[in-house]
């Protein structure tokens, strides 16, 4: 049977806006095998609760969603990683957090569990005291006489998050990179449990601070979907204003960081200056530079300030006025182009297998943007085109970001010109009183598609998963640096800019 037929045949459990299909162990095994031969559905997330494992599949053509679950039997479920290598990191995480083992999984080494927790697996029904530390020194083997290793981190040289990079090099050339994360594990999924969506929103807002707005939107939309609440149109529009400001600020910072790593600080200083202008406008309009805690389940925490729209528009004008000079300076510098072109090439076919989304996917030819597919308000009523490049190198990722800066400016102008009337937020607390409900919400952050799933029991969160796009992007960085010189790693890394905290949970 095909993947779709297997899902159709399985009983549907209530979840909004799409049901969750509960597959039998045998059907799930067939589903795992069918995924290997059916590329028409992307695996976008894989997670668990104490008794089941859940997968999110998306049809990239139309954005239709499919949720599939299987009961874990004697601690085991059939692995998806042989069919979809993107599942490997998820499977390692599931084992560390819930204790379910992916039978025949590609990689069963520990991931988030570094042996330092007091009890594990922390989200299992009954965690046990931690006795033996898992062996973290275990890295993939490499063979070859002249190879040497460069070990970096977890504490890095710059002002960035911690992670361990294990390079194997042949002279100057990287032949393998293995990334080890989990250092920032704060137990966020555990903290969500037993809280109302309104209280738990603070944790979603802090899964990855640079995407605080986008994660807050995905979380709020999951809670609203669960109780089928509709929020006022003005709140929807203001969320999009904040999301586009966040995208602008991050893209400007990222472009600056990439050119700086190619020894072009002059250009970086202008990009970062513009980033600061956007942060200040966000502060003036919404009262917080990163707009943290301003998107809440049911609506928004406060309205835009009276002069907020004017301040944002004048910053956009300033950015647009300088933009041609920034573009010309970027395109006209041979030494910069020499560093960014062909560097860190991500093969489109590999990208298709991992469905990385965001700038990374779009720079390798994938038209994946969840504002378009499946779409959500207010974007579904707006003019928004897909921005893609085919080259898949650092330069393509810069160019996608540059084009998206312009697209966000256009969206912000549309949104601010047509802000609907003020209306009170939807009150979720009443609808959630004592109910059991499930919802999935999504939002396009500056890194790509974010998915949040919530299961609410008795009005409180019983289980949840917050999926940052970095899960499907980090492994591709490992692939994209192969064959590059070590000195170009910072360029590759900055052009990906995956989140550490977002996947460390």
């Amino acid at each position, binding site marked *: 049977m095909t993947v779709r037929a297997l899902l159709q045949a399985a009983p549907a459990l209530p979840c909004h806006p799409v049901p969750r299909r509960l597959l039998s162990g045998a059907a799930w095994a067939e589903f795992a095998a069918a995924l290997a031969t059916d590329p028409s559905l992307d695996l976008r997330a894989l997670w668990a609760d104490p008794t089941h494992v859940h997968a999110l599949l998306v049809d990239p053509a139309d954005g239709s969603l499919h949720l599939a679950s299987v009961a874990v039997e004697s601690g085991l479920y059939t692995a998806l990683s042989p069919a979809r290598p993107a599942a490997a990191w998820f499977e390692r995480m599931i084992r560390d957090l819930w204790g379910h083992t992916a039978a025949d999984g590609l990689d069963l080494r520990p991931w988030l569990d570094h042996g330092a927790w007091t009890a594990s697996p922390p989200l299992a029904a009954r965690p046990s005291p931690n006795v033996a530390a898992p062996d973290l020194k275990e890295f993939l083997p490499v063979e070859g006489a002249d190879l040497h290793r460069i070990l970096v981190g977890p504490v890095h040289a710059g002002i960035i998050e911690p992670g361990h990079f294990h390079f194997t090099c042949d002279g100057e050339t990287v032949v393998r990179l293995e990334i080890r994360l989990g250092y920032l594990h704060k137990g*966020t999924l555990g903290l969500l449990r037993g809280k109302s969506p309104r209280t738990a929103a603070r944790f979603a807002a802090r899964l990855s601070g640079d995407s605080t707005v986008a994660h807050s939107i995905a979380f709020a939309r999951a809670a609203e979907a669960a109780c089928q609440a509709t929020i006022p149109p003005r709140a929807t529009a203001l969320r999009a204003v904040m999301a586009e400001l966040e995208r602008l600020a991050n893209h400007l910072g990222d472009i600056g960081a990439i050119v700086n790593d190619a020894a072009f600080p002059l250009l970086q200083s202008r990009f970062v200056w513009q980033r600061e202008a956007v942060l200040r406008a966000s502060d003036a309009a919404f009262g917080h530079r990163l707009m943290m805690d301003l998107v809440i389940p049911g609506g928004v925490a406060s309205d835009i300030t009276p002069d907020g729209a004017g301040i944002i528009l004048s910053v956009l004008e300033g950015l647009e006025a300088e933009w041609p000079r920034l573009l010309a300076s970027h395109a006209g510098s041979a030494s910069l182009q020499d560093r960014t072109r062909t560097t860190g090439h991500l093969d489109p076919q590999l990208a298709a297998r991992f469905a990385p989304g965001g700038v990374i996917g779009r720079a390798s030819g994938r038209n994946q943007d969840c504002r378009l597919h499946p779409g959500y308000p207010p974007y579904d009523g707006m003019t928004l085109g897909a921005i893609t490049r085919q080259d898949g190198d650092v330069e393509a990722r810069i160019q996608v970001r540059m084009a998206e800066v312009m697209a966000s400016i256009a969206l912000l102008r549309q949104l601010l010109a047509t802000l609907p009337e003020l209306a009170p937020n939807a009150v979720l607390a009443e609808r959630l009183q004592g109910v059991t409900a499930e919802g999935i919400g999504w939002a396009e952050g500056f890194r790509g598609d974010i998915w949040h799933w919530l299961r609410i029991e008795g009005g409180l969160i019983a289980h949840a998963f917050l999926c940052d796009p970095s899960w499907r992007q980090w492994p591709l960085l490992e692939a994209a640096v192969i064959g590059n010189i070590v000195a170009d790693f910072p360029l590759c890394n900055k052009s990906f800019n995956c989140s550490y905290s977002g996947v460390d949970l």
Partner: protein
Amino acid sequence: MAWTTLWRALRRGHATEPAAPLDEDLTQALAARLHRASIAKLGRSLTIRQVDPGSCNGCELEIAMLGSVVYDLERFGLRFAASPRYADVLLVTGPVTRNMEDALLRTWRATPDPKFVIAVGDCAIDGGVFKGSPALLGGVDAALPVDAIIRGCPPSPTAILDVLCALIEAHAPDRPAAR
């Protein structure tokens, strides 16, 4: 020929005269001048190492802005170092996760004395919103002695810069403020 020259030099003894006794007053005056110069030049300078043992990355975003053209922290004698080995100050962001405890302690040990530890952001102060999570040790003071704190979630670049400049002033009490 070379042997004759060598023999003569040995017979004549050292041509270099022994050093004259030190002029105590001059030495004192020079030492005082050097001290003033070092306070003026070095006392107005702090090297900072940022460490993230568990942040959401919001605090890093704002700290990174300090190095931008807008805030330009180097004009105050402040600079970021790539290694704790040359750092005077550790700027620590986020709660301390159990998975980062070891790396944080090693970074702290690699920082030469005297060193200042500044806990940046609400998480670094006491765990912030994550307080109580079993995956955490707690705020920075659960792992290290903390000298100063900067509140906020995240604190603005201006708030962080104010504390760093105050630290410089404390270092060089007899100098007029630079800003």
